[in-house]
C-alpha cells in the first residue's frame, strides 16, 4: 500500500493569535477560544497519514475542528501553519507551497469534495448535467458529446434518473442532490475524496443507500477518502481508521473497531458510551 497523503502539524487560528493561545485552549482547557486574545484555535497540530484506497474517519462533536481540517486540505481556507504532502503517481506536491493556480489544478483534477450542504458543492442555477460538465471542462475535456456521455455515465452510476439530467438540482430531493454532488466529485476520477457530513440530515433509508454507494465506489475505483462525521454509525460502516477530535486537537487515533470497542481516552469512552 502506498501513502497518498501526509499531514503534519496542521493548525488554523481565527483571530490575531497570541503566545498563550495554544496552552490556553484544547481538551484540557475545555475550550477552543483563547481567553487572552479571543482567537479561536480551530485546529492545532493535526497530523496523520492516508494510504491509497483507505477511508479515514474524522469524528468529534461540532466545534471539534474536523471540518476545518478538510477545508484546509481542500484549499477552501489556508491553514495558519503546517504541511500536507500529496503523493500523486510519481510526483509529490507540498500543498501549501503551491501557487493558487497549482492549488486550483489539484482541486479540480485530483481531489473531490462532497459537502453536507449541496448548495456549496453544486451550482443550483445550472442543470445536474451542467454541474458535472463544469468539472469536466475544468479538466479540459472540450468535447460536448464526450461530456454528455461521461455525465450520463456518472449519474447512472450514482443512481440519478437520467431523465432528470437536464433539470436544475433545486428541484431534487436531498438524497438526490447528494448523489449529484458525488457524481460531480467523481467526474475526474480523483484518487482522493473529502466527504463532509454527507449523510447528516437525510432520512435513514436514504442515508443507507448513500453509504452503500460510497463503499462501492471506494472498492471499484480505489479512491482514498477522508470522511468527516459526528455519526458513529457512519464511522463504523465506512472507515478503517479514525481520528477523534476535541477542541481542535486529535485526542485519539486508531483502528475504527478498536476506537469503538476499546476507546482509550475518557472523552472517547463517553462519546461511544452515549451512542450505544
Amino acid at each position, binding site marked *: 500500500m502506498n501513502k497518498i497523503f501526509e499531514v503534519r502539524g496542521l493548525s488554523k487560528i481565527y483571530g490575531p493569535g497570541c503566545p498563550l493561545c495554544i496552552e490556553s485552549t484544547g481538551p484540557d482547557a475545555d475550550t477552543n477560544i483563547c481567553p487572552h486574545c479571543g482567537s479561536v484555535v480551530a485546529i492545532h497540530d493535526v497530523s496523520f497519514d492516508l494510504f491509497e484506497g483507505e477511508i479515514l474517519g474524522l469524528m468529534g462533536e461540532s466545534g471539534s475542528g474536523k471540518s476545518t481540517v478538510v477545508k484546509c486540505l481542500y484549499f477552501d481556507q489556508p491553514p495558519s501553519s503546517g504541511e500536507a504532502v500529496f503523493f500523486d503517481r510519481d510526483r509529490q506536491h507540498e500543498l501549501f507551497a503551491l501557487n*493558487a*493556480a497549482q492549488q486550483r489544478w489539484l482541486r479540480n483534477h485530483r481531489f473531490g469534495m462532497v459537502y453536507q450542504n449541496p448548495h456549496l458543492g453544486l451550482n443550483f442555477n*445550472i442543470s445536474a*448535467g*451542467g454541474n458535472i*460538465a463544469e*468539472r469536466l471542462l475544468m479538466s479540459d475535456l472540450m468535447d*460536448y458529446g464526450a*461530456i454528455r456521455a461521461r455525465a450520463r455515465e456518472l449519474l447512472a452510476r450514482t443512481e440519478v434518473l437520467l431523465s432528470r439530467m437536464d433539470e436544475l438540482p433545486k428541484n431534487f430531493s436531498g438524497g438526490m442532490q447528494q448523489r449529484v454532488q458525488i457524481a460531480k466529485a467523481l467526474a475526474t476520477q480523483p484518487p482522493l475524496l473529502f466527504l463532509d457530513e454527507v449523510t447528516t440530515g437525510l432520512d435513514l433509508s436514504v442515508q443507507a443507500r448513500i453509504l452503500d454507494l460510497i463503499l462501492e465506489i471506494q472498492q471499484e475505483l480505489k479512491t482514498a477518502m477522508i470522511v468527516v462525521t459526528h455519526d458513529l454509525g457512519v464511522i463504523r460502516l465506512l472507515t478503517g481508521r479514525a481520528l477523534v477530535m476535541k477542541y481542535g486537537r486529535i485526542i485519539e487515533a486508531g483502528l475504527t473497531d478498536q476506537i469503538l470497542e476499546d476507546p482509550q481516552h475518557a472523552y472517547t469512552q463517553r462519546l461511544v458510551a452515549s451512542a450505544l
Partner: protein
Amino acid sequence: MNMTSHTPTAYNFGFLDEYAKKEVRRAILKAVSIPGYQVPYASREMPMGRGFGTGGLQLTLSLIGPGEVLKVIDQGSDDSVNAVNLRQFIEMTCPGVSTTTRTAEATLIQSRHRIPERPLTGDQIIVLQVPYPDALVVVEPSEDKRKIMHGEADYSRLLVKLYEDIVQFDEITISHRYPTRINGHYVIDPSPIPRWDVPKLHHSRSLALFGAGREKKIYAVPPHTDAEPLVFTDVPFRVEDFRDGEGRRRACERCGCADSFLDEFVDGSGEKVYQCSDSDWCDEHLAEANQGVTA
C-alpha cells in the same frame, strides 16, 4: 502630436489634455503587449454621457493626429445619431483631421456594434466602443474573483453556459458579445458585434482596440493574433444564417449583395425585407451594379 492649438476654440487638440492622452497611449501599449488583457485606465470625464461611446472616443482622441482620415460608424451606418455626433465632436476638436464614410479611405475607424465588411488593412486601426468589457461578468459577480479566473485562464464556467445553451436549444444562442479567446489565454467580450464579425478579429491585418469608458478598461487584439470563439471541439462556431425557408441565401434588397451581414426591416406593406448592415459596403455594391447597367 501637436500641443499648440490650431483652433479658435479654447480646447486642446483632441479635447483631452496631453497627459490624459499619454495615459491612454500607455494603456494601449500595455493592451497590445498582453493581447486580450483588460488594462485599467483613468477614463476622463467627456462632454457626453458615459455609455455613449466615451471609451472608444478617448482611444480615438489619443490616437488621432492631423492628416488622419477618420470614419465613425454605429451599427454599420455612418448616418445614425450617435455616429454623427461623435464625428462632429472630433471634427470640432481635431482641426486638420478629415473624415470619410469610405472604409477603404479611413486610417482610423471608430465603431459601435460592427466591424466593416471590407477586410481591414495593416494601415488601419479599428476602435470598438464597449459597454461591458468582462466576458466573465455573466458567471461571476465579484471582480476580484474574475481577475483570478482571467489570470488562471479559468473559463470553465463560461463553457458551462454554452453547454446549458446546447442542452436547452440544441445550439449556442449567443447572438452578440460572443466570448472569444485571444492568443490562447484571455477571453474577451468583443463588444456587441454579431457572431458574423468575430472571425474578422482572427489574424486580422489591422489592430483592434476596445475601449470601455464607464468600466474604465482598454484591451486589444493585435494584428495577426489568434482570436478564437469559445466552442466545444465537436460543436463548431457558426455565424448567423441568412437562408430563407427554402435554404436560399437572402440578398440585400438594395444592392443585391448575398455575402454580407443583413439587417431585417418591415416595409410599408408589412413584409420583411433585408438590407446590408454596413452602409458603405452597400453603397459600393450599388455603385458597381449601376456601373454594370450603364456600361
